């Protein structure tokens, strides 16, 4: 036992003073009594003559001496050397990744890390500032350089097990930045070491890595999909189970659909191996399948997975006018495209006339994701959906036609344009094209160079341009496909697919079926028109039943709170249809539980990583001060015994409800005492 303030022992000189007070008994108060006759009888057997004997059994003095001794000891600030933190500041980085939920140490890795952190915080010198960083999917400073231990404990308590990985490198960088401001900082990393760190990480402050976890025995569902089966109508679930442990494992994989057990597989998985299971012939109406690994292992999070059918809704394309074989062929070859053809309505056409406008045609126009006008312009634009004009014969409210140009030479204007992905425009000739000055909303994709007879460049006209007007996507191809050899070129199907992709984005897969925990999801309503409605909102029901509402921001609906594992359901506005996606922990980094003995990349020559232990000072003045307080209270109680006894008697009498019964004799009274 050592002392930080040994000078306090000079206070020990007060001890003889207390004894002297008792010897001298300076504080006698004189009190007149009728007679000391009875008191003599009392004192006779108590009083001893020698002053030293007088001190015997004086409980008050003994308590006062003990109190003073405890107080002096507390003031002297004794400490012992203990394994723990001894620096002037400490930074605790708590890993809250999914692997920290493993229960190979009871109650869990995170819980024991929290307990260890609490203990370390308690052992810190009082002047040490505490910083607490949670290394979850995003590193987060929970407490910054605080002297308040209660805050530190609260911050530690507030850390919840996460579902994703841990951003340890950012946490370490944060810690390093904080350590740079306060010298003598120790950085404690409480983790299982299943983290990714950059190769070269320079850190300020002393780093101590405290690993948690015992074994890596864990099996996980590493993949689960639900796809349309080969037969077409029924569905197939595909699951994959990985064994991350070092022992062969035997687990049963159960697959449920709609809450009913559909299939079960007994899988023998070699260490480090993967086994797959295929459940075929699921009923076509199946919305979601669930796979469960029966039995228990260290990490329960990855023993369950959900999958939904990828929600591929066909793109509805309406072709107005013309009888373009090329377009029809291209559309029919594109997967997930459902196209219909309507005759142009009466007043639009100039060359080709189709006098009747049938109501079904109107409906088809209204519901279409994309409307293609081939050699047509409508009198009124359809209310929703993207538009593609091919060789528009007349001006519309979106653009103006100024004439026909002959023999433009196609030239790529922007190589990085998504429409031109994988597309080569060499060897393509165009007979003539409609001249359309580029509207201000548009972005030219392909230009056509015009040359005079001598082959000199004159000017350029846009052949293909695209843009967004009033929240809808519009593209214009200025030449008739029949007046070009483009449809015969290999570039045509690619260009066409890119065009459709851009014009009807997401319609083919409005949602990813699988999302990693914490990943952002862009929600695309099945009806693209909804997006243009500023008031549209998406209501998301989380796996635990709670709901969240997402408002559109810059025309997009983004949901980022995917921290829970399971099935999320989305409803757009007041629409009936529900979409769904699942969040699963398909993360080998987290499912592989084997704790690392050192932090990867940090075990350098400085020996900063690893289980290094060092001594810190653990102070003991608090319990001593508490002891002193207890002794002081005890002394007071002893001193007030008579009063307390009277109080007790009075209370007891009051409780019995007995008023003071007058009695003439002390003999009657004596029983009370």
């Amino acid at each position, binding site marked *: 036992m050592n002392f930080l303030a040994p000078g306090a022992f000079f206070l020990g000189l007060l001890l003889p003073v207390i004894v002297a007070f008792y010897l001298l008994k300076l504080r006698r108060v004189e009190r*007149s*009594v009728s007679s000391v006759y009875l*008191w003599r009888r009392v004192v006779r057997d108590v009083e001893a003559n020698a002053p030293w004997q007088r001190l015997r059994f004086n409980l008050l003095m003994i308590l006062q001496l003990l109190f003073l001794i405890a107080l002096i000891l507390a003031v002297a600030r004794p400490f012992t050397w203990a394994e723990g933190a001894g620096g002037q500041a400490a930074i605790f980085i708590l890993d809250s990744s999914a692997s920290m939920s493993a229960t190979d140490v009871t109650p869990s890795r995170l819980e024991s890390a929290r307990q260890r952190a609490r203990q370390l915080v308690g052992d810190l010198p009082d002047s040490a500032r505490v910083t607490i960083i949670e290394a979850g999917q995003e590193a987060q400073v929970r407490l910054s350089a605080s002297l308040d231990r209660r805050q530190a404990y609260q911050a530690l308590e507030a850390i919840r097990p996460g579902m994703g990985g841990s951003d340890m490198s950012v946490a370490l960088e944060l810690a390093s930045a904080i350590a740079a401001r306060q010298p003598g900082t120790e950085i404690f990393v409480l983790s299982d070491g299943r983290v990714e760190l950059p190769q070269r990480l320079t850190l300020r402050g002393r780093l101590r890595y405290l690993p948690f976890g015992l074994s890596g025995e864990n099996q996980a569902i590493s993949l689960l999909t639900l796809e349309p089966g080969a037969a077409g109508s029924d569905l197939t679930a595909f699951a994959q189970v990985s064994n991350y442990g070092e022992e062969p494992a035997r687990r049963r994989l159960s697959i449920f659909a709609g809450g009913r057990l559909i299939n079960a597989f007994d899988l023998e998985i070699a260490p480090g191996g993967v086994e797959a299971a295929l459940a075929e012939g699921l009923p076509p109406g199946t919305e979601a399948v669930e796979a469960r690994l029966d039995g228990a292992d260290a990490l329960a999070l990855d023993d369950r997975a959900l999958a939904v059918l990828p929600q591929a809704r066909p793109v509805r394309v309406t072709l107005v006018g013309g009888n373009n074989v090329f377009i029809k062929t291209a559309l029919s070859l594109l997967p997930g495209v459902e196209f219909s053809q309507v005759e142009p309505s009466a007043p639009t056409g100039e060359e080709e006339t189709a006098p009747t406008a049938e109501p079904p045609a109107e409906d088809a126009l209204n519901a279409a994701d994309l409307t293609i006008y081939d050699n047509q312009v409508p009198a009124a634009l359809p209310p929703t959906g993207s538009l593609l004009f091919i060789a528009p014969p007349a001006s519309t409210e979106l653009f103006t036609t100024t004439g026909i140009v002959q023999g433009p030479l196609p030239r790529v204007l922007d190589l990085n344009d998504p429409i031109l992905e994988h597309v080569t425009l060499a060897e393509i000739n165009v007979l003539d094209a409609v001249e359309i000055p580029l509207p201000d909303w548009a972005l030219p994709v392909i230009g056509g160079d015009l040359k005079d007879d001598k082959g000199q460049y004159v000017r350029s006209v846009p052949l293909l341009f695209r843009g967004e007007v009033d929240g809808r996507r519009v593209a214009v191809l200025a030449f008739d496909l029949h007046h070009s050899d483009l449809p015969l070129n290999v570039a045509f199907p690619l260009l066409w697919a890119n065009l459709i992709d851009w014009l009807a984005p997401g319609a083919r897969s409005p949602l990813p079926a699988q999302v990693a925990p914490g990943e952002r999801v862009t929600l695309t309503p099945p009806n693209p028109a909804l997006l243009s409605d500023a008031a549209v909102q998406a209501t998301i029901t989380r796996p635990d039943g709670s709901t969240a509402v997402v408002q559109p921001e810059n025309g997009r609906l983004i949901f980022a709170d995917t921290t829970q594992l399971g099935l999320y359901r989305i409803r757009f506005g007041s629409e009936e249809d529900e979409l769904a996606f699942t969040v699963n922990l398909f993360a080998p980094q987290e499912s592989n539980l084997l704790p690392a003995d050192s932090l990867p990349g940090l075990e350098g020559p400085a020996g900063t990583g690893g289980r290094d232990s060092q001594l810190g000072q653990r102070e003991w003045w608090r319990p001593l001060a508490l002891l002193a307080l207890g002794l002081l209270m005890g002394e007071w109680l002893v001193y007030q015994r*008579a009063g307390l006894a009277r109080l007790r008697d009075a209370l007891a009498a009051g409780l019995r409800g007995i008023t003071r019964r007058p009695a003439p004799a002390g003999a009657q009274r004596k029983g009370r005492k």
Partner: protein
Amino acid sequence: MSEPFFSEDFLQRLERLALAARHAMPGQTQGERRSTKRGQSVEFADFRPYVMGDDFRRIDWNAYARLERFFIKLFVEEEDLTVHFIIDASRSMDWGEPNKLRYAARVAGALGYVALTGLDRVTVTAIGGGNGQPVFPAQRGKRQALALFAFLQALKAPQNGTPGDPAAQLRAYAAAQSRPGLLVVLSDLMHDGWVEGLRALAARRFEISVLHILAPEEIRPELNGDLKLIDAESSAEVEITADYEVLTRYCQSLADWQADLRQFCRSRGMAYLPIETTVPLEELLFTWLQRQGVLR
């Protein structure tokens, strides 16, 4: 003296009481109590043979007719009784709230009035108050009540001077009395001499009642801390640390002392009655003293 010692109403109630004597005792003059003497009352006592000089008026002629011998018919004499009050007037009595000496004087006054009403002789002696002992000489008759009250009201503890030994004073008192009678001692008995003095009185065949008067402060002392206790009488000092244990021990000591006194009194045929001065006088007289057989 400004206020009357007792109220009219109270005195009227007192007249219904009488002092009880357990034994017949010889008196001085005609009274209402049975005497040990034979005399002239209507209560027949005994026969005895006639001897020369007897009053022949008292010969029982019926007995003579039957037996032809002279017998004298004897009757019980009814005489008065002297009631002695001994009041401890030491400084230790002049203490407490209510004051013990005042209380003792009022008790003596009430009992004395009862005795005077019953045609008994009353004498009061205050002892413990130094040399000059105030004495109320034996008087008879209800008319002496006012004088008795005045005497009692004037009783005071001496302000200074060494306290006398009650044993010697009581011995002297016992020797001086020609006729023993009822004797009521009112004292706090806070002196070892009292027990000795009582022993001397008991030897003179007094019928003694000891009224042990204590103040509430003496029964339940409310003391705290380190104290130097000073005797009001002798100025003797005792240093105590009044904590729970000491107070508990004091109460135990008081109880033991009272038990010893009770035992002492019982063994000598005395009535012993511990009294706290907070007990109202009415209750003491009309309940407790009757129950103890002092009054009836």
